[in-house]
């Protein structure tokens, strides 16, 4: 892996590229409530794309719909193939995976096994071999590499319950990355991380993107989103209200209004302003 931040495609040219993920008119309704309203967007391969929005804007629901956890109307194309009717694990097999805000680690498996499960892709008949020769872990080097990358090498035989929250978050991210998915959907990966850990995370995400994995990231934390992402979407009340590179999003009056308009969530506004005052971010 390179140590410098990867150069991603110019987001203004994203529309010209064949999109990795193309979403058209995605709508999610729960009873009378519409959580996501006719959202359409494209994600270019190799980029780091962010989605921000106030609490309850529908960000997590959007990821749930992309992965197939919640029924949705509309069209989702991934690698040029329609996936909106596929089950979750089918979408995952095509190269789409996610992390969860509540982490959802495999609490009954060790840290290493958490990554192994995600890295392996056995066939249905593997079980017949498994009961005779169990240790055929061809993906072990990749697992080791990621355990190193997120600094969990020393904890690999522990159960997740014994790790700090930051380390649990690292397991969650490493577990998603080790699957070699084409597109990673990260749900609040910065939650519970301290400032240093966030900088490390930002750098890791840039590196992963430079290696060709596309990243879609939702987070509250402007300190993480602004410097990390090439392109940002803004969601409010389930609708896409803005889209563009970080500089443009910072100064977009609708975005500022959306953030001010939500019951005075001052920490986020302050974070947005602070990030706006430090062009280019602080971690490079």
């Amino acid at each position, binding site marked *: 892996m390179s140590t410098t931040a990867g150069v991603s495609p110019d987001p203004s040219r994203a529309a010209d590229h064949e999109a990795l993920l193309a979403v058209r008119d995605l709508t999610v309704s729960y009873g009378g409530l519409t959580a996501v309203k006719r959202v359409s967007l494209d994600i270019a391969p190799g980029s780091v794309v962010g989605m921000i929005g106030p609490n309850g804007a529908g960000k997590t629901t959007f990821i749930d719909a992309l*992965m197939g*956890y919640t029924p949705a109307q509309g069209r989702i194309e991934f690698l040029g193939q329609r996936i909106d009717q596929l*089950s*979750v*694990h089918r979408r*995952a*097999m095509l190269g789409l*995976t*996610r992390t*969860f805000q*509540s982490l*959802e*680690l*495999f*609490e*009954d*498996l*060790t840290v290493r*096994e958490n990554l*192994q*499960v*995600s890295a*392996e*892709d*056995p066939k*249905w008949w*593997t*079980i017949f071999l*498994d*009961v*005779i*020769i*169990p*240790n*055929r*872990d061809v993906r072990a080097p990749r697992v080791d590499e990621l355990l190193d990358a997120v600094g969990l090498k020393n904890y690999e035989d522990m*159960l997740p*319950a*014994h790790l700090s929250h930051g380390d649990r978050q690292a397991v969650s991210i490493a*577990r*998603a990355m080790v*699957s070699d998915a084409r597109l990673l959907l990260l749900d609040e990966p910065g939650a519970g991380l301290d400032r240093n850990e966030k900088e490390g995370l930002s750098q890791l995400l840039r590196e992963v993107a430079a290696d060709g994995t596309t990243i879609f990231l939702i987070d509250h934390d402007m300190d993480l989103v602004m410097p990390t992402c090439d392109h940002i979407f803004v969601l409010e009340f389930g609708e896409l209200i803005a889209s563009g590179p970080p500089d443009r999003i910072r100064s977009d009056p609708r975005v500022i209004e959306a953030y001010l308009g939500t019951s005075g969530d001052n920490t986020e506004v302050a974070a947005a302003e602070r990030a706006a005052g430090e062009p280019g971010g602080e971690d490079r």
Partner: protein
Amino acid sequence: MGDYLVFALAGMGTGAVYASLGLGVVLGYKGSGIINFAQGAMAMYVAFAFDQLRRTGELILPVIGLPTRIGLGGPAPFPVAFFLALLLAALLGLMVYFFVFRPLRYAPTLAKVVASIGFMIALQAMVVLRFGTANRSFAPVLAAEPIEMLGVQVPRDRLTLGLLTVLMAVALWAFFRFTRFGTATRAAAENEKGAVLLGFSPDVLAAVNWMLATVIAGLAGMLLGGITALDPVTYTLAIVPALGAALVGRFNSFGATAAAGLLIGMGQSVITRLQLDVDWLPTGLRDGLPFLVIIVALVVAGRSLPMRGELSQERLPFANRPKDIPLYAVAGLGVAVVALYITEGGLRLALITSMIGAILCLSLVVLTGFLGQISLAQMTFAGAAGFALSAFSMQMGLPLVVAAPLSAVVAGVLGLLVGIPALRVRGVNLAVVTLGAAVAVEAFIFRNPDYTGGFEGARIPSPTFAGFNLGIGGQGGGDFPRVAFGLFVLTILTLAALAVVNLRKSATGRRMLAVRANERAAAAARINVTWIKLLTFGLASFIAGLGGALLAFRQGQISFESFGVFVSLSLLAAAVLGGISSVSGAIVGGGIVSGGIAFVALDRWLGVGQYQLLISGLALIFTAILSPQGISGAVRDGLDPAAENPNPRKRLAGLGSGERILS
């Protein structure tokens, strides 16, 4: 047509009991989030105590250590006996809640189910010890002279019972709808914190609901006893139709539960009459009806139990990665071979029984320890293999090298079928389905003389391999059981144990544990959750089938009694006691199965054979509360106290996802 009406109305008697037990189950679940599988056994105890009071004036106490009976100096008149029995019921409910289920408030669903079943086994065993296994017919309680209704003569007591049930349901509904206590219980069922805010302790709520449940169950037991003679097993298993009724009522509605209970009883009665007219109806339909109700309610209508918002949740025991396997395998094999040679007669037979028991426990290690699913029907799969083996070898004349593995495959396929509901339901719902399935398969297949030889049983030829006699007995008597059969069983056990060890270390085993831990995250990690569940059900049932085939060889002749529901429950007891999540646990479990080495030894040296079921029931409750990892886990911790316990008992709320996995 009049005939059918008479049968339908007469069925209100049993229907009323199903309904009352169902109401009790709903009460217990509302109050404490626990499904009381022992509801039928509790009703039986109260009814028998009531009967004893009226006969001899003796109050029979259920607690070991206290005096067995307190004499009142002569038969008690009805009102005295009646109120004493109800008081006893209330006390029983209260004690059970505080000593068994309160300590398990935050335990994983498996522990709750296991404790509930342990209590059911223990109570049933206690009743058999104190009252005997014979049918009891009571002095009638309700007036029984027939009355004219809708143009037919119907016994009055059935109508009275039906009416009482309806009144009870209405009273409960009103109580929960209009009193503060009822509101608080409903709030607690949603969120235990809610009840605290209303000024009620969740403990008090749960205890009162348990007392109410036991009193209602006891009432039904007493009234039914006056109508029809009952034996302990029938009473205890009345929990299956009661669970069906409670499911129709979504473990919430008293009205729907009572109506469903009454209808199941009436339906069974009508089926009895119908079978006189329609001779192609399967013979087991009457006993299988509750299972059909369960399947329709749970799987087709999607009526699973409502979720409870509980304060925190513990996890299933950790499935250790096996270490130093060659060492343990060689040492274990050496000990087993020596033991087979130095023992003889009953002790050697017990050793062989334990080895077969260990194979059966292995099937539960795979299903429950690895996948986290509960099955109360494991002996049903074993039985399917046993009867299939008999059919393949005796009727079709297949050689045993083909017939034996094929019979285990039959068990595997049956497991796949029972596993299909597991795709829709999990946790305690699945326990209910498998319990119903066990009763239904026994009724439809095992008790059908066309398939299984009836009371004569199905015969199994003695196994031979390449000219060697592997059978348990020689040609002209002599050495019994033969060492060769022991070595044959030991070989299969070793292979099965190594396969399960390898499974735990392999990609497939990791996927099972990932599904057990978190189905949502498993799907995002490319795991086909449906496939893993079906695969595991099939594999576990195949292993159970191996055990069943060996059991058939051991007995030479099998009948449905070897594979009944209570045998499945006592197997689960042994597996959990031994340690549900490891191969070593299964080996220990084999030691303590019924007829196994531990009980034979206990009986020989301490003479406690008749207490076997009672002991295993009580031990099961203690395991669920004190040592969820079972004996083998406790020994592992004891041998290596420095090792970090990977499964701290308490976990903070919110972090865990166990609640979603197993509720």
